[in-house]
């Protein structure tokens, strides 16, 4: 049995076992074989990069990058899910459903990353919606129910739109006399296709998968979902699902970029990205719920990534580098904000304060993450944003660059004022004594992720640079760093 089958069959069996075994600690112990399997799969994929695994699966540099990243984020997600379940005394039934859904969610994300057939990619994206519904509903209260309903409903519309995009692509392939939807076949026949169909296909793909990457037009339910779901799941949404949505859109972009619609697609992505950053800036100025604040910050970064792709040249590199650094920082912020919520027992920024005193290690992690997410040096995001601006300038997009810089200032102010309030605002002494302290050990996973993000900013490993260069090498007008 090859490792691909082992991974899929093994994980599904583990998920089934998790659902059947109803013991809290035992249920979490089952994550050890799953994470082992996930790491083993990532390790084996590394050595079979660019080989054909199967009729429908292949691992290339792009999937490898995000596969590693998913595995890196998945481990602390499980740790924090365990810690929070222990503290909240979740019922056994809730834990078993949550864990099984979490495993299947990670498997579905892996599936999107390694699919080499458009249809399969879409089916796995559909599977992420199904499994995330159970994760969002985990707390079983009215807010969670509302978020789940909205997410499922709108994500279904999104996935239906994406399917429509694939149908249009299907018509285009029939015109080109090659009715085959695997990425390799599409890349060969794409030049014979009618550009009108490709344009319609791309529009619906971007609109449809926008619910996964979390940009305009369908971003609102993603925000609600991250607000209502447990923080560890919010981390996986921002640090995993966002990348998966990007990969889904990027696969189509890569294939279509060798046709005459390349410039048109760039315009679409630029408008989508810029409106996303605009909405993020508007909401970040007024939002008072810190979980929603980070969700809107993900909207901003997803928008930035699309703008980087649309700028072309060195922007392709910047986009992927940005996603990597963003995943590490945003995941650690979501983990830490879960602890903040646990400490104060609510999500309102204005009624918090002095977190650095209450939980020094966690507060410091929040502070470092805050510097990181706002793309101040030495954060990895600083490098990618500089490169994005460089790409915009070389592409003569002065207006976009100016608008972007303007909006980013608002975001800096909006997030800055809220986060500094959480960290430093003095609280009355009697409130400070009544607060439950959280052990500093629980912040260790955040520190590891944050140190990774800082390393990316100070000394980006050459192996990673090569991998990103390979991932974007097939695009037209790509500029080597």
């Amino acid at each position, binding site marked *: 049995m090859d490792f691909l089958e082992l991974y899929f069959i093994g994980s599904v069996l583990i998920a089934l076992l998790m659902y059947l075994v109803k013991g809290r600690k035992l249920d979490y112990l089952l994550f050890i074989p799953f994470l082992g399997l996930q790491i083993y799969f990532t390790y084996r994929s590394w050595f079979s990069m660019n080989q054909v695994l199967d009729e429908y699966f292949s691992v290339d540099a792009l999937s490898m990058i995000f596969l590693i990243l998913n595995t890196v984020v998945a481990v602390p997600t499980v740790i924090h899910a365990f810690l929070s379940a222990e503290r909240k005394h979740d019922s056994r039934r809730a834990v078993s459903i949550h864990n099984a859904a979490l495993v299947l969610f990670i498997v579905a994300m892996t599936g999107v990353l390694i699919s080499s057939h458009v*249809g399969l990619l*879409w*089916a796995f994206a*559909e599977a992420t*919606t*199904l499994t995330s*519904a159970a994760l969002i509903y985990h707390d079983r209260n*009215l*807010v969670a*129910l*509302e*978020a*789940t*309903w*909205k997410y*499922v*409903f709108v994500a*279904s*519309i999104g*996935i*239906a739109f994406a*399917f*429509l995009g*694939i*149908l249009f692509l*299907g*018509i285009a392939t*029939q*015109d080109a006399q090659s*009715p085959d*939807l695997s990425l390799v076949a599409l890349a060969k026949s794409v030049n014979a296709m*009618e550009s*009108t*169909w490709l344009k319609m296909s791309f529009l619906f793909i971007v609109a449809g998968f926008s619910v996964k990457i979390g940009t305009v037009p369908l971003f609102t339910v993603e925000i*609600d979902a991250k*607000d*209502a779901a447990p923080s560890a799941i919010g981390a996986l949404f921002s640090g995993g699902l966002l990348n998966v949505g990007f990969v889904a859109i990027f696969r189509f972009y890569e294939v279509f970029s060798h046709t005459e619609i390349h410039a048109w697609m760039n315009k679409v992505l630029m408008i989508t990205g810029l409106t996303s950053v605009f909405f993020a800036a508007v*909401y970040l100025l*007024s*939002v*008072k*719920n810190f979980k*929603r604040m980070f969700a809107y910050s993900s909207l901003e970064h997803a928008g930035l990534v699309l703008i980087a792709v649309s700028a072309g040249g060195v922007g392709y590199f910047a986009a992927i580098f940005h996603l990597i650094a963003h995943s590490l920082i945003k995941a650690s912020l979501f983990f830490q904000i879960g602890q903040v919520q646990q400490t104060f027992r609510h999500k309102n920024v204005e009624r918090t304060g002095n977190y650095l005193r209450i939980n020094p290690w966690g507060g410091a992690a929040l502070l470092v993450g805050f510097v990181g997410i706002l793309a101040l040096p030495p954060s990895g995001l600083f490098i990618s944003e500089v490169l994005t601006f460089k790409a915009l300038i070389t592409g003569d997009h002065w207006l976009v660059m100016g608008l972007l810089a303007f909006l980013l200032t608002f975001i800096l102010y909006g997030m800055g004022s809220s986060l500094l309030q959480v960290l430093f605002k003095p609280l009355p002494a009697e409130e400070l004594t009544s607060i439950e302290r959280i052990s500093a050990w629980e912040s260790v996973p955040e520190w590891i992720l944050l140190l990774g993000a800082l390393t990316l900013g100070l000394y980006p490993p050459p192996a990673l640079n090569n991998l990103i260069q390979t991932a974007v090498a097939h695009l037209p007008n790509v500029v080597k760093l």
Partner: protein
Amino acid sequence: MVNLLIIAFAMTLTYSAIANRFSSLIRILAIQGLLIFGVALLELHQINLINLIFILLETLVFKSILVPAILYAVITRNKVSRDCEINKSFFNSIFSVIAIFAFSFVLAYQLHDEHLKIIYFTASVSAIMIGIFLMIFRKTIITHTIGYIILENGIFLFSLALGSDMPMIVNMGILLDLFSTVLILGIFVNRISDVFNNIEVDVLTTLKD
């Protein structure tokens, strides 16, 4: 014959925009399921038998019996078989539907393509847009759900137009149908209607900034 069925499908769409009782909307869904069953039966005779049987079962049993039955059970249990308030006037609804049809026709002719079956394209694009229309301009969650199912019927019809050359596409359409509809109906039937005891959308407004 296929054309006749598709035209009948388009007529059900017109009716869905002005139907003012839940029960008639649900009946429309059942009829649409039957019509799509007919189209699949006539259109897909050259694909392999097992796949064909599966598709026919899905359209006949799932689309035209199971889904309407579940929705009907919800409205009787919640005692809401009264009017589903149309908050646009009758004339506006009819006018919008006609505009949608006209737009779809013009679009289909504009795109003129040898592989594009104009009648399929018009009916399915109209169904998709009318589904969205119902989701935007109606107030209850149940009409939104029905709007979504109409949208999905439109997409499924479109996939049948491509189906004889690419059977995989039809299977994907079925996947979409089964999973999303089951999930949406599952949450809707089990949770929303119980917990809120109310199927107006206005109750779902806790999440905001």
